[in-house]
């Protein structure tokens, strides 16, 4: 298929020229094949009579001549000029028609219609209007041939007129074909342009996106750096305030009055509050940046509960409440988990319970709901959380309106951090609460095996 294509196509910058030359090649090849077949046929048919043999010789020579002519025109078409080749081809066709039969048949008989072939081909091979030139040339040829006929022969005017009409039809036909082609080409060119423009726009947009992405990543890096810097810069002076207050309270710089001691306690309590906020903000920023991870290691539940009691006992007791703890015996220990973060979760939830409980107790229960999980329930006998608030209570910076006194207020990150930490641990947290009776936060965590820990 490729070879035939290569044989037919002539490279040209002008698409019309290329099309014309290809058409000419197709015609030349068809004619070439026909003559080749007739040459072969004549060579293989045995001669049976004198007359027939003479006829064949004539046809044989003519075929050979046409075949050579086809080769010459093919060469001109390919290597020099499509127009010249076409003109030569048409001239040879006219001459062949004019002298290929008896003059009478050419002027008035069977061969007259053969002039239609070069006329129609002209509009296809050259320009649409070339059919008129060919028709004119054919008419002149007919008139010339008329001269070889008996003297009283009149020129075949209706025949010549018919050729002219044929030329007009051929012209119209080719012209509409060429116009349609031109339109297609214009549309194609427009489409190409549009595609190119769109491609350009797309690549530009892509480029802008990449730049924006780069900027975002840079911002993210800056944010992380900023958060860690701020956290360090805030915590260091807070640490100093806390430390000096404790030193004065411990009597390192001499004895102090009960009022001074009270003031120092307030300094310590407020510093701790501030530290808690800073830590929560830092945790939230880390969670948002995807930087917070849990580090699992073996631990014992009793240590976790002891740590909670050590942190919360005084606070719970100061409010006249009781912190009850309960651990079911049959949990496989040690468990794998991030004890530091679990501690943070328990302290946050206990603190939360403490805020909303005026009488009664806070209960922390550790149990095993099924063989693959362990769970912690933190319940209180507080005022409970309204239904509408239960929907948003785990969202960052959300607080139940009017629920806290000014000293209880934080930034509203505690429960959000708890939930996100539990999600990091592949666990779940749910809330059950009834107004006036209390709330229970239920945590369920997977029991990890050492293999899972390595993940």
């Amino acid at each position, binding site marked *: 298929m490729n070879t035939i294509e290569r044989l037919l196509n002539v490279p040209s910058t002008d698409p019309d020229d290329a099309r014309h030359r290809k058409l000419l090649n197709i015609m030349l090849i068809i004619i070439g094949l026909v003559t080749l077949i007739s040459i072969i046929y004549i060579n293989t048919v045995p001669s049976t009579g004198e007359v027939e043999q003479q006829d064949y010789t004539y046809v044989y020579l003519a075929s050979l001549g046409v075949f050579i002519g086809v080769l010459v025109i093919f060469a001109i078409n390919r290597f020099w000029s499509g127009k010249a080749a076409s003109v030569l081809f048409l001239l040879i066709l006219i001459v062949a028609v004019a002298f290929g039969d008896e003059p009478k048949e050419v002027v008035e008989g069977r061969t007259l219609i053969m002039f239609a072939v070069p006329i129609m081909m002209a509009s296809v091979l050259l320009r649409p209007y070339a059919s008129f030139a060919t028709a004119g040339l054919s008419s002149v040829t007919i008139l010339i041939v008329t001269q070889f006929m008996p003297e009283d022969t009149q020129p075949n005017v209706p025949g010549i007129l018919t050729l002219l009409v044929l030329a007009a039809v051929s012209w119209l036909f080719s012209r509409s074909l060429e116009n349609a082609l031109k339109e297609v080409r214009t549309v194609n060119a427009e489409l190409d342009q549009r595609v190119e423009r769109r491609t350009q726009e797309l690549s530009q947009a892509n480029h802008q996106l990449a730049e924006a992405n780069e900027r975002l990543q840079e911002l993210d890096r800056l944010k992380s750096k900023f958060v860690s810097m701020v*956290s*360090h810069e805030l*915590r*260091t*002076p*807070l*640490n*100093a305030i*806390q*430390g*000096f207050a*404790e*030193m004065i309270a*411990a009597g*390192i710089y001499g004895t102090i009055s009960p009022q001074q001691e009270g003031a120092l306690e307030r300094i310590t309590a407020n510093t701790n509050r501030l*530290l808690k906020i800073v830590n929560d903000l830092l945790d939230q920023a880390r969670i948002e940046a995807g930087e917070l991870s849990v*580090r699992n290691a073996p631990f014992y539940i009793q240590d976790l509960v002891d740590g909670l009691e050590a942190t919360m006992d005084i606070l719970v007791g100061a409010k006249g409440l009781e912190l009850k703890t309960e651990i079911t015996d049959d949990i496989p220990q040690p468990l794998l988990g991030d004890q*530091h973060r679990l501690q943070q979760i328990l302290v946050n939830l206990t603190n939360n319970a403490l805020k909303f409980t005026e009488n009664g107790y806070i209960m922390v229960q550790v149990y095993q709901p099924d063989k693959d999980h362990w769970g912690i329930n933190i319940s209180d006998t507080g005022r409970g959380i309204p239904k509408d608030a239960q929907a948003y209570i785990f969202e960052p910076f959300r607080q139940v309106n009017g629920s806290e006194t000014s000293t209880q207020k934080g930034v509203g990150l505690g429960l959000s951090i708890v939930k996100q930490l539990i999600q990091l641990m592949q666990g779940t947290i749910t809330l059950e609460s009834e107004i006036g009776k209390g709330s229970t936060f239920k945590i369920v965590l997977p029991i990890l095996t050492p293999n899972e820990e390595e993940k």
Partner: protein
Amino acid sequence: MDKKLAFVIEDEPDLATIFSEALRSVGFETKVITFGDVALEELQTSIPAVVVLDLHLPHISGTEVLKQIRADERLSETQVIVATADAALAESIEVNADLVLLKPISFLQLRTLAERLKTFPNQSE
């Protein structure tokens, strides 16, 4: 004269004072050092029983100081308390330190710890 020696290697002067006071209040003789390279020099001539070590130090980092202490045969009995605000970094050096405290570190917390460390047997001979 049998007071045990403690180094506080910390570049924040206020924190250094607090840590140093906490150790002193339970009977340590303390020395505050601000720079990592100075700490390494001092460690050539003294053998402290306890070192409170910040990880972010000028010149030579606390991590490097810790590595040097652990590589030094003479200091094999020295207890190192790492004090840092960087939880991730703390995790990575946990093996080498005797104790890792995450800042903020309270005066009372450190004092309680120091009290316990003082009774540890070490190189006081």
